[in-house]
């Protein structure tokens, strides 16, 4: 039998909760109707299930179900929110504000709009990963139509000050979109209290199935969008195409469970995270946490293990599934742009691991993982010329490296 590695990559994706899968199953086979069929029982059954799911999604955001539209995932939701608002209001508003540490799908949507003549401001972040609210306020002009700032960062887990951002946007009359793929179900989100106008979420980050997500679009005051996908006018004309009943049901159930268990999970994961991190700190010197510790979801750590290259480290801890801040796994040699935006130096960014804890992580898992990492970091440091030089008191910055 193959033993599976301990899964500590919950920011990448999560397993579908068995309770979610169970709720979905009848809609593949028995209740298979097209939720948009109005003429018969099968359609009505499916529609009822989709509407119940919509209400479940709305509840975790404190929204009205009419304000929730289903999409294929957070990437589509982000594309629709950003391009949709930009195109609808382009006659008067051609400026968008976002931030340098956003997910690629937000940044790439903005780049796409720039090519079409829009102006985009990419706000820098402070060393702890949070944006500077004064810089946001200063960046807003009469031409600004949208501010898009993520709720929780996917690499470093930090929580942006949503309520304050929402307040500024409302004062200035600018729509506020947030990519909440990593936030929903982990921290309380309230679109009313936070003055959020558009919000993207993803099912597979919250123990639901892959291939479905949602976009919250405020009705009062009304936010209008130009659709990306045209067709039969489903989802209030903002996203045509037949909905997948089982996927919508899965997302709804996932939201319901996440909402019910949020508080207890928050406490449990905080304890696990602290246990894991303090074990590492006790055994390893010169390790550094990337991103704020306090304003952070409990299920994420992003740690630089100085003088040990991240990809090499991952190879040595194959019993654990984590991801690296060093992008050497991809064709590019550039380390994470998120860590670089925090001001983490390239050599340190190459030594970082993202460790994600979630619903099915146990105390035994984190203890085992911590011991494996400690052992491997020590082994690789003994093999690292940089560690040896640092021990001898050589300033690595004084050396003229041949960058390649």
């Amino acid at each position, binding site marked *: 039998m193959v033993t599976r590695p301990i899964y500590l990559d919950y920011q990448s994706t999560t397993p579908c909760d068995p309770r979610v899968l169970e709720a979905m199953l009848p809609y593949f086979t028995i209740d298979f109707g097209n939720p948009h069929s109005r003429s018969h029982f099968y359609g009505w059954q499916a529609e009822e299930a989709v509407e119940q799911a919509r209400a479940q999604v709305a509840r975790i955001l404190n929204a009205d179900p009419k304000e929730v539209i289903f999409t294929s995932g957070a990437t589509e939701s982000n594309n629709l929110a950003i391009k949709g608002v930009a195109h609808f209001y382009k006659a008067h508003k051609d400026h968008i504000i976002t931030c340098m540490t956003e997910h690629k799908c937000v940044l790439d949507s903005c780049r796409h709009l720039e090519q079409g003549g829009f102006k985009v401001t990419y706000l820098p972040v402070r060393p702890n990963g949070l944006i500077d609210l004064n810089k946001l306020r200063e960046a807003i002009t009469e031409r600004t139509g949208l501010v898009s700032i993520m709720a929780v960062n996917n690499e470093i887990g930090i929580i942006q000050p949503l309520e304050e951002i929402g307040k500024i946007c409302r004062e200035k009359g600018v729509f506020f979109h947030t990519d909440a793929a990593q936030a929903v179900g982990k921290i309380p989100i309230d679109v009313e209290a936070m003055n959020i106008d558009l919000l993207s979420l993803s099912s597979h980050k919250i123990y639901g199935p892959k291939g479905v997500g949602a976009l919250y679009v405020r009705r009062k005051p009304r936010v209008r969008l130009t659709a990306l996908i045209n067709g039969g006018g489903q989802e209030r004309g903002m996203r045509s195409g037949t909905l997948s009943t089982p996927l919508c049901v899965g997302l709804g159930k996932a939201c319901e469970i996440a909402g019910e268990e949020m508080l207890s999970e928050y406490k449990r994961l905080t304890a696990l995270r602290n246990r894991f991190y303090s074990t590492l700190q006790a055994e390893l010197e010169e390790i550094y946490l990337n991103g704020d510790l306090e304003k952070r979801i409990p299920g994420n750590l992003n740690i630089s293990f100085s*003088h*040990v*290259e991240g*990809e*090499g480290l991952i*190879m*040595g801890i194959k019993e654990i599934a984590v991801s690296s801040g*060093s992008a*050497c*796994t*991809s*064709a590019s*040699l550039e*380390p994470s742009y998120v860590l670089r935006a925090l001001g983490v*130096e*390239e*050599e340190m960014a*190459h030594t970082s691991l993202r460790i994600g804890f979630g619903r099915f992580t146990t105390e035994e898992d984190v203890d085992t993982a911590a011991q494996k990492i400690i052992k491997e970091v020590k082994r690789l440091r*003994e*093999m*690292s*010329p*940089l*560690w*040896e030089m640092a021990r001898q008191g050589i300033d*690595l910055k004084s*050396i003229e*490296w*041949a*960058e*390649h």
Partner: protein
Amino acid sequence: MAYSQKVIDHYENPRNVGSLDPKEENVGTGLVGAPACGDVMKLQIKVNDKGVIEDAKFKTFGCGSAIASSSLVTEWIKGKTLEEAGAIKNTEIAQHLSLPPVKIHCSMLAEDAIRAAIRDYKEKNRAG
């Protein structure tokens, strides 16, 4: 990405990890790569009076392929003359370890490390 069996073997059981005293006359040291690029190799050779490499040691900061490339070349260069060692090509290293295209730079770095160590040895011994 799956690593080849040979890469895994060198990564898990690296040969000749360690350091030689760089101040010794018959030791040549090569330090190549850059921390900002995610890989640094230190390769050292000890050369006897017949011009043959009698010992080699390495330390590497980098991915599994970088560690394997440097471990492999320490094995290869032991017992070789400086000329023979200097003729080792990165393509031979890459082929032996079945490195994928994105990891070819690891083998190039290992080749550079050998040359740098030989150069250092020769410079030291020219003066003396």
